[in-house]
């Protein structure tokens, strides 16, 4: 049953990883613009290189 200590540590680390990712996302401004990414994927021509 003491293995639960190990499990606890692992799960908390994973969860902390997610928290870190969340804070990173918000800092990077990923959630600032909710309109553009959704529409961007609908554009037809793909990967045209600039002249």
């Amino acid at each position, binding site marked *: *049953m*003491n293995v*639960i200590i190990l499990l606890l540590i692992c799960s*908390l680390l994973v*969860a902390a990883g997610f*928290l870190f990712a969340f*804070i990173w996302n918000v800092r990077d401004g990923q959630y600032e613009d909710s309109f553009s990414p959704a529409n*961007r994927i*609908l554009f037809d021509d793909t990967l045209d290189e600039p002249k």
Partner: protein
Amino acid sequence: MSTGVRHSTTCYHCGDTCVTQVLENDKTFCCTGCRSVYNLLNQSGLCMYYDMNAHPGITRADPERQDKFAYLDNPDIVRQLVQFSDAQQTHITLYLPQIHCSSCLYLLEHLHKLQSGVVTSKINFTRKEIFIVFNHGQVSLRRVVELLTSLGYEPHISLHSKTGNRQGIARDKIYKVGVAGFCFANIMLLSFPDYFSTNSYMEENLRVLFQYLCLGLALPVLFYSATEFYVSAWGGIKNRYLNIDIPVVLAVWITFARSLYEMFWQHGPGYFDSMSGIIFFMLIGRIAQDKTHQYLSFERDYTSFFPIAVNKLFGQSFKPVPVEQVKEGDVIQLFSNELVPVDAMLSKGEASIDYSFVSGESVPVQKEVGELIYAGGKQLGGRIELLVVKPMEQSYLTNLWNKSNYTEKDTSNRFIDTLSKYFTVLILGLGLSALVYWALRGQAGTGIHALTTVLIVACPCTLLLASSFTYGNMIRILARNKLYIRHPGILEKFNTVTALVFDKTGTLTHNRDMQVSFVGPDPTPEQKRAIVSLAAQSKHPYSQAILAYWHDVAPVRLQHFKDIVGKGLEAWHEDHYIKLGSAAFFNQPGLERQSIVFAGIDNVVIGQFVLSNVYRDGFARVFRSLGQKFKQYILSGDTESEKQFLQTTLGNGVALNFNQRPDDKLAFIKGLQQGGETVMMIGDGLNDAGALKQSDIGIAVTENNNNFTPACDAILEAGTFHKLPLYFRFARYGKAVIVLSFTFSVIYNVIGLYFALQGSLSPLVAAILMPCSSISIITLTFGLSQLSAWRLKL
């Protein structure tokens, strides 16, 4: 086949009606500008622009000056504007307020196809910004900006680098919620063993470990996420003011202390989950409120505009445009007594500016050609032309307007303030008495329970929010209907009005389509020119009518122009003294039958203009429906010529007063107020500024002009004058919505407290109820006010 049908097509690019049709590829455009944009996109294979949205373009009917962006050749200026520049590339972020749909997104992110040298471009739609990377060796910043302008997306370049708070809920609130949520969820998970505890299930060591982990997770919540509330509560205490965050802070710390006690002395489960839950849910509620406030103020500052218009130069002639469409480099024309809506440079005419709106200084300032005139000043001289230096800042004018009138007419917030003060005291009292009660009965545990839940559950925020959200949303809806209200308290006052006072000329009557005829000996061309020049200085409906009547005469510059309020205009032209005005101005006996403007040169009356009034459509209906609830009065500076007509049209319910000078109007309103009436005055701001200020609510009616006076509480666009009864009904609905929300809030509090006092409400459930009540109030107020608007077809 009917012959009278006119086939009007709309421009393929911008959607405007095509007056003159320009054709290409069997598509119709309204002008060559729009067609050129289409051609440009077609050649670069970007026609998906048109596939994604109908008429996505911005009208190109207004040609830009060639050298408008010449200043971008200056390397110093470029350095100020760009974010980054190395040997090859330059990065810049530009604000494009015209971005409005996915087609814009498509086009602007494919700039590299239209212009070689542009590497990439990326849009932030919410902020309406474009981030461009380009090779400055291949293409200059000026060329990039000109390209954007030619597509219809002229960047708003401000050298004062005010990026403005156009969005963004404070990031740190989001971090706090994130941390609180993380800790809360994990604490709950770690508390599972305690929830389901039977003695033999867990070893003692493990249980202790779990408890310490919970404690550890609770600390970031307590010391980081809850700082919001500490700051606010401390601010309240310092000002000897019990605000609503104090019970919350108390509840949190009592729970924490109790959990510590339980953990170390009783070896029982803590309440860390409840504590972190309280903070997590409260933060969610706060964010919801902040977002709503932000949405309402964004709308107010950037979307719903003053319904005022200025004359803008299009090619050779002036046409009125809504003031928010005025851009840098435009030439606008201002008449006497009009407000300068934007920072601009004087280019023609004599300017005498009254800055009392901005600085309180009422001594007018004389300005020379080439000098800068700041927004908010009022032109006292004659007609002038200005070159716009900065585009309109709605928020600046709204702030000035609010600031100028703050002290006098605001009473609404006081009720809410006292209420919240007493509320907090009441709640603290209730909580403490519950604690004492249960302690005396020997169940101290239940007592603490009751105290904490009472402190959490009681939510005065609904009382505070209901009013501000409802009126905020209603103001937004009314602004869409071209009634722009200074601030929410005014809307509340709508429900207390008992008497309506209307000005006649310009308010009830049109500024257009007036019938004019000249009575007197035929004037010489010189005399005609003098009179027309004088009339051209003012936006008064009679002046404009005279101008239209003798439209074939070109006005000339005059000297020493003066607009004497309520009487007339005077000026000098080549040593001749010219006057236009009412009978009283000329010391003539007033003729009873028509509206007459006398014209005089060198103190000799050369004739009279006889004007007929054209009343607004449906104005009689407005009076009839309003007459059922309000006392109505008409005050006019005119003679009694219209008395018959008005009496027959409006019946005897409306009291008519003529020959009112501005002082008379002011005195009349004072008299009504002394008689106990709450007065709403509706005028055109030209010669009733004093009366507008004196009345409890003053509404200025505008029509393609800019007679904005800071004395007014609301601006109504003339076209929607007939909706006045609807606005009153809307205000009544608003009151009903607030009463409903209050009732809902009271019921919620009573039920919550009932359970809390008994100690049977778990703190966690209480914590969840908090944002639920905030969110339900938001939904209730917004939903009901939208519903009322929909019912009234607003």
